[in-house]
C-alpha cells in the first residue's frame, strides 16, 4: 500500500510535470536547440548552399579578426542597441504610467499605443520610407510647402541612424508598455494608500514605490529590447538597406549578405555564433547588475 502511494506521489511530482512539459520541450529542441547546435557546427565548416562542404576548423573565426565589415557592422549594432534600449524602456515606461490606471476609456488609449506593434516591420518600413523620402517624401513635401528646408532623413548617415532609432522606438513602445502596465497593476494598492497618508507626492510615489516594485519587469524589458535590437533586420533592410553606404548596416544584415549573397554559410554561422555570445554576455551582465542592486538594498 505504501509502495503504491509512493509510486502515485512520484508520478504526480515528477513524471506528470515532465509529461506536460514534453510537447514544449520537444518543440524547443527541434526548432531552437537543434538549429542552434547545427549553426555552431556549421561555423566550423566551409559550407556553401550550392557547392561542397569541408571541415575548416577555426578558420572562419580566425578570418573574423581581420574582417573590417564584421567589426563595422558589430559596432553599428552595438551603437543601435545603446541608443534604442534606454529610449525604448523610458518611452514604454512613460506611456505605461499614463495608461496604467483603471479610469473609464483608458483601454482605448492602451489599444492605440499598441497598434504600431501589430504592424509588420516591412509595412512599417515601407510607410516610413514613403514619409521620409528626400524628394517624394510626405514630410519633406510639407516642410517645402511651409517654406522650410527639406531634411535628408534617410540619406545622411547621422539622420538615417536617428530616424531608425525613432521608428524602432515608435513601433515597439506598445509591446513593452503592456509589460510595464502588467507590472504597475500588480503593485498592491495599499502601498499607495500608505504613501498618501505619509504625504508622498507623485514623484516620490514613482521613485519609492512604482519603480522599485517594477524593477523585475524593467529588467525583462531591457533584456528583450536588447535581444530584439541586436536582431533588428527587416525594418532596416526595407527602410535603408543598411545605407547610406554601410552606416545603418547591422551585423544581422551582414550575416544575411555573407550567407545568401556571398554563399559562405559557414562564415555567416561563425558571425552568428559571435552575435549569440555578445547577446548572452550582455544579458548576463544585466541580470548580474540587477542582482547586485537587490543585494545593496
Amino acid at each position, binding site marked *: 500500500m505504501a509502495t503504491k502511494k509512493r509510486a502515485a506521489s512520484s508520478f504526480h511530482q515528477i513524471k506528470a510535470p515532465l509529461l506536460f512539459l514534453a510537447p514544449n520541450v520537444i518543440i524547443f529542441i527541434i526548432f531552437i536547440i537543434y538549429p542552434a547546435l547545427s549553426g555552431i557546427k556549421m561555423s566550423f565548416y566551409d559550407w556553401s*548552399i*550550392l557547392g561542397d562542404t569541408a571541415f575548416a576548423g577555426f578558420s572562419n573565426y580566425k578570418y573574423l579578426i581581420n574582417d573590417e565589415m564584421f567589426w563595422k557592422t558589430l559596432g553599428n549594432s552595438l551603437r543601435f542597441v545603446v541608443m534604442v534600449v534606454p529610449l525604448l524602456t523610458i518611452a514604454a515606461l512613460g506611456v505605461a504610467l499614463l495608461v496604467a490606471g483603471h479610469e473609464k476609456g483608458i483601454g482605448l488609449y492602451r489599444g492605440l499605443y499598441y497598434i504600431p506593434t501589430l504592424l509588420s516591420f516591412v509595412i512599417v518600413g515601407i510607410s516610413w*520610407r514613403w514619409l521620409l*523620402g*528626400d*524628394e*517624394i517624401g510626405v514630410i519633406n513635401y510639407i516642410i517645402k510647402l511651409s517654406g522650410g528646408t527639406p531634411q*535628408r532623413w*534617410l*540619406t*545622411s*548617415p547621422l539622420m*538615417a541612424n536617428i530616424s531608425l532609432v525613432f521608428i524602432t522606438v515608435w513601433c515597439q513602445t506598445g509591446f513593452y508598455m503592456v509589460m510595464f502596465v502588467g507590472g504597475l497593476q500588480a503593485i498592491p494598492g495599499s502601498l499607495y494608500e500608505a504613501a498618501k497618508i505619509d504625504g508622498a507626492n507623485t514623484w516620490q510615489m514613482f521613485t519609492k514605490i512604482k519603480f522599485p516594485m517594477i524593477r523585475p519587469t524593467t529588467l525583462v524589458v531591457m533584456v528583450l529590447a536588447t535581444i530584439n535590437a541586436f536582431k533588428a533586420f527587416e525594418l532596416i533592410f526595407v527602410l*535603408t*538597406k*543598411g*545605407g*547610406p*553606404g*554601410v*552606416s545603418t*548596416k547591422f551585423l544581422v544584415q551582414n550575416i544575411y*549578405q555573407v550567407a*545568401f*549573397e*556571398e*554563399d559562405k554559410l559557414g562564415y555567416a554561422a561563425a558571425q552568428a555564433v559571435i552575435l549569440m555570445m555578445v547577446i548572452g554576455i550582455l544579458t548576463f551582465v544585466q541580470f548580474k547588475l540587477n542582482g547586485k542592486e537587490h543585494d545593496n538594498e
Partner: protein
Amino acid sequence: MKRILAFVCLVFMVGVVFANGNNESSANEEVTLSVLWFNDGNESDIFLDTVSDYLEANPNIKIDLQLVSFGDYDKQLKLMIAGGSPPDIARVTTSHVATFSNSLLPLNDKIADFDSYIDPFNKASLAFATKPNGEIVALPTEATANGMIVNVDLFTNAGIDIKTLSKTWTWDDWYAAMKTVVEKNEGLNYGLGFDFSPHRWSTLLYAAGGRFVNEGGTAMDFDSPETVDTLKFFKKLHDEKLIPPSIWMGSENPQELFQAGLVASHIGGSWVINKYNSSITAFKWAAVNMPKRKIRSSVAGGKFIASFKGAENEAEAVKLMMHFSDQEHNAIYCKETFNLSARTDANITFESRSEDFNIMAEDLAMTPALTAEDWKSPVLGKIYSYIREQIIEGLLENQTMEESAKNIQAKGNEAFK
C-alpha cells in the same frame, strides 16, 4: 497463418495492379509544372497568355506560377535548389544563369536537333547561357540593354534639341546640356535618375574603357585608372547635384522620380520603356543614345527560361520552354511585354515606341563583348551589394574612390579563390 499469408498476397497483388495502372495512364497523367517568376512589369500575365494555347492543347498540363519579388528571387532559388526541390521552370537573368549554371538543366541532349533549334537565337544572349563545356542551360527570351530615357519637354524648354544632340554626344556634352536643363527649368533640381545598381553603374565604366573581370574571367581587373576615373565622375555628378543623393544613398526609386518629372533623364534597363509607355502621359519622353566617353556602350543582358537538374517534371518542362521560346510565341511575348527579342528571326512591330527600341538596339550593337563576359562571372553576383556599398562609401567621402576600387578588387579576388 494461412490467412495472414493470403492477406499479404492480396495486398501485393492490389499493389501490382495499381502500379501497372499508373504506368499505363502516365501519358495522360495530370502534370503540374511549378514555374518561378519575377516581374519587371506584367510579364507573368503575358507568359500565361502566351502559353495558353499549349495548355489548351495539353489539358493534362497545369501551371503553378509562383511570383517572387526580384529582391528575394536569388535567395528563394538558392533555397529551393539546396532543399532538393527546384522549380520545373524559372525565369532567370544573366546573373542567375552565372550563379546557378551547375544546377541548371543542360538542354543540348533534351531537345531534338538542338543545333537547328538554337540557331535563330541571338548569339550574345546565347553566350550568357553557354557553359565553358559548351552546354546550354537556358533559353533566351528577351534581350535587354541599359539605356537613357529623357524628358524631352525639359530639354525643349531649355532650348536644346535633344534628338539631334544625342546622336553624337559625349559625356561632356551631356554634362553641359544637363547643367543648362536644370538651370532653365524652374523647380527642376536634378538632371539624372541613375538606377541603384552596379549593373547600371557599369554602363559608365564600360564607356570609360574599364571592366570588372579580366579576359578569361579568372580574376578582377577593376582597380584601374579607368575605374577610378568613372568613380570620380560619378561622385562629381552627385556633388554637383546632377544625380539626386536620395537614390544611391536613400533607395528612392529613380523611375518614380522620372515619372514625377523631378529628374530630366533616367538611366535604367530597356524594360522601363514598357512601364513608361503606360504610366507617363504628362510629358513627352524618348530613349536617346548613351553618351560616349572612350567608347559608346550599353550593357548587354537578358532574361531566360530554364529548368533545373532534379526538377520533378523535367521532360514536360522542356516541352513548354520550347513552345514558349519558338519564333511565334517569343514574338507574342516580346511584343506584349515591350521587350527586345532574343531571337534574330523575330519580326516584331511594336504598336508604339519602336523608335525607342531601335535606339537601345543601336547602343547594344556598339557594346563590346566584354560586358557580357563580365556579367557572366558568378563572382559579380557574390559581391554585388559590396560593390554598391563601396561606391557609396566613396560618395560619402568615408574613403577615397581609389580605396573603393581597391576594396572591390580585393573582395572580388577573394571570391575567385
